[in-house]
């Protein structure tokens, strides 16, 4: 046990840090992009507050395209754009953009479906009170669906952890990369098992936090 920690402790710890860094940075950016996308979809749909068929169709179409690409393909497909935006295509810097492009539209979809759960009657009631559409969207619809949105974001965060495992391909490191490089390629199963256990605990933790927060926000 002691020898294992001496031998692998710092490698795994670094990997853990890299996974956390990649996941949290890209998660925050994806939320910042994903929530407006979800709102845009709900607002511009045919029975939305601001129906706009071209905007809805184009957004819908782009999201579907991005969502049909496996992350590993996306990672290589947008290399030139990554190079242009991040200045590099390797390391954590090089993997943030692909991860955001992967998770942003996904969160957009999750937010869309959460917002669509809001009772249309409630929206109509606020319209009848002379409340502006902006306030109805951001102060009423987002508020009413917050429990459901948190559940969606929890799913997205866990999905992101999975995607970061592939970030090792461009040298961004992380737990998934350690499990692959040392555990699989060099056949050191003990390293693989430890990283797997850490990933399991991490996912359980995130899911539990998400469940608790979501339940607290739910009042019905």
């Amino acid at each position, binding site marked *: 046990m002691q020898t294992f920690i001496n031998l692998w402790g710092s490698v795994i710890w670094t990997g853990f840090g890299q996974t956390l860094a990649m996941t949290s940075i890209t998660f925050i950016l994806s939320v910042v992009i994903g929530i407006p996308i979800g709102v845009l979809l709900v607002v511009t749909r045919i029975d939305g507050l601001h129906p706009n068929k071209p905007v809805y169709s184009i957004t819908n179409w782009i999201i579907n395209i991005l969502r049909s690409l496996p992350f590993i393909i996306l990672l290589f497909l947008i290399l030139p754009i990554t190079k242009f935006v991040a200045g590099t295509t390797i390391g954590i810097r090089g993997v943030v953009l692909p991860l955001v492009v992967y998770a942003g539209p996904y969160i957009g979809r999750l937010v869309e479906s959460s917002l669509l759960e809001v009772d249309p009657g409630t929206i109509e009631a606020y*319209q009848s009170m002379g*409340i502006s559409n902006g306030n109805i969207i951001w102060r009423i619809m987002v508020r009413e669906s917050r429990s459901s949105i948190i559940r969606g974001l929890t799913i997205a965060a866990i999905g992101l952890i999975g995607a970061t495992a592939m970030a090792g391909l461009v040298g961004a490191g992380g737990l998934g990369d350690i499990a692959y490089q040392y555990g699989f390629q060099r056949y050191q199963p003990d390293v693989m098992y430890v990283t797997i256990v850490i990933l399991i605990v991490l996912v359980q933790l995130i899911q539990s936090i998400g469940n608790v927060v979501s339940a607290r926000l739910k009042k019905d």
Partner: protein
Amino acid sequence: MIEFKNVSKTFTGQQKNKHVKAVENVSLKVDDGEIYGVMGYSGAGKSTLIRMINGLEKPSSGQVIVNGESVADLSKSDLLKLRRKIGMIFQSYNLLVTANVFQNIVLPLTLEGIDKKEATQRAEKYLKIVDLWDKRDSYPAQLSGGQRQRVAVARALAHEPKILLSDEATSALDPETTESILSLLLKINQELGITIFLITHEMEVIQRICDRVAVLDQGVIVEEGNVVDVFTQPKQEITKRFAGVSDTLGVPRDILAPYQDTKQLVSLQFVGNSANNPLLSQLQEKFRITPDILAGSMGYMKREPYGRLLVYLKTDDKSQYEAALQYIRDQQVHVEEVKL
């Protein structure tokens, strides 16, 4: 004041050439301070009609005029201002499930720019009016249907509107709760002077609180007038059905058949003061007719007592019978021979 001028509304369906006429050539006028009811079965166009008052729907033709202005012609910001002066309550309450009772009143007020202190004061004032101040920290899920509707009423009142629209507000409630919400609406109308425009498919709602009523059938107003007149002398078949006025008051036909042959089977309708007169005993004294009561019902329309009787006027003397009918009419009682 609310006025509909030749208002029609047509919805275009999925197929371009398939139009649904929801409201057709409706004209009506609601005076300040009155309670006006529109009654009709579901699909009659009531929901569309009421939503044209606050611009949630726009008429295809004609005009809806509220406080002297055509609603459809208002600018976006003027429409928002108008809506703030028109409260609305719904069958499904439409409260925020994530907010407690107090927040449900305060939040919409602050969203329209009323400062926090004023909003808080209003919430307290109107929650006390609807008798729910002690439930201010509860969430809608913890309240009964009637309590939720009271919160919705308080939310509407907190904007201090001149007009309150009620969209089937009691349709999801049991009879007892319905009664409590109706007396609340009556109180609001009388004490705060708020004009109420309501739609319903429930006859009792109209009878209990409305001053005037319009009966809507397939988008068309088929009958309109004072509630007492419309329901005591309904002209249209649909109104009769609503009023539950079969001439026979629910008595099986085979039981009535022997009486009907004598042509002395009549239905009597008493409204207001005439309902208090001991008419039947006078018939016996004055005309020596023995009235045989086969069925009857008594009730109130708003505050007017109202009764219906199905009576067999037993006499062999045809002239006495005719004189009795005349006497009944002189007492302001509506009388009609029943034909099966």
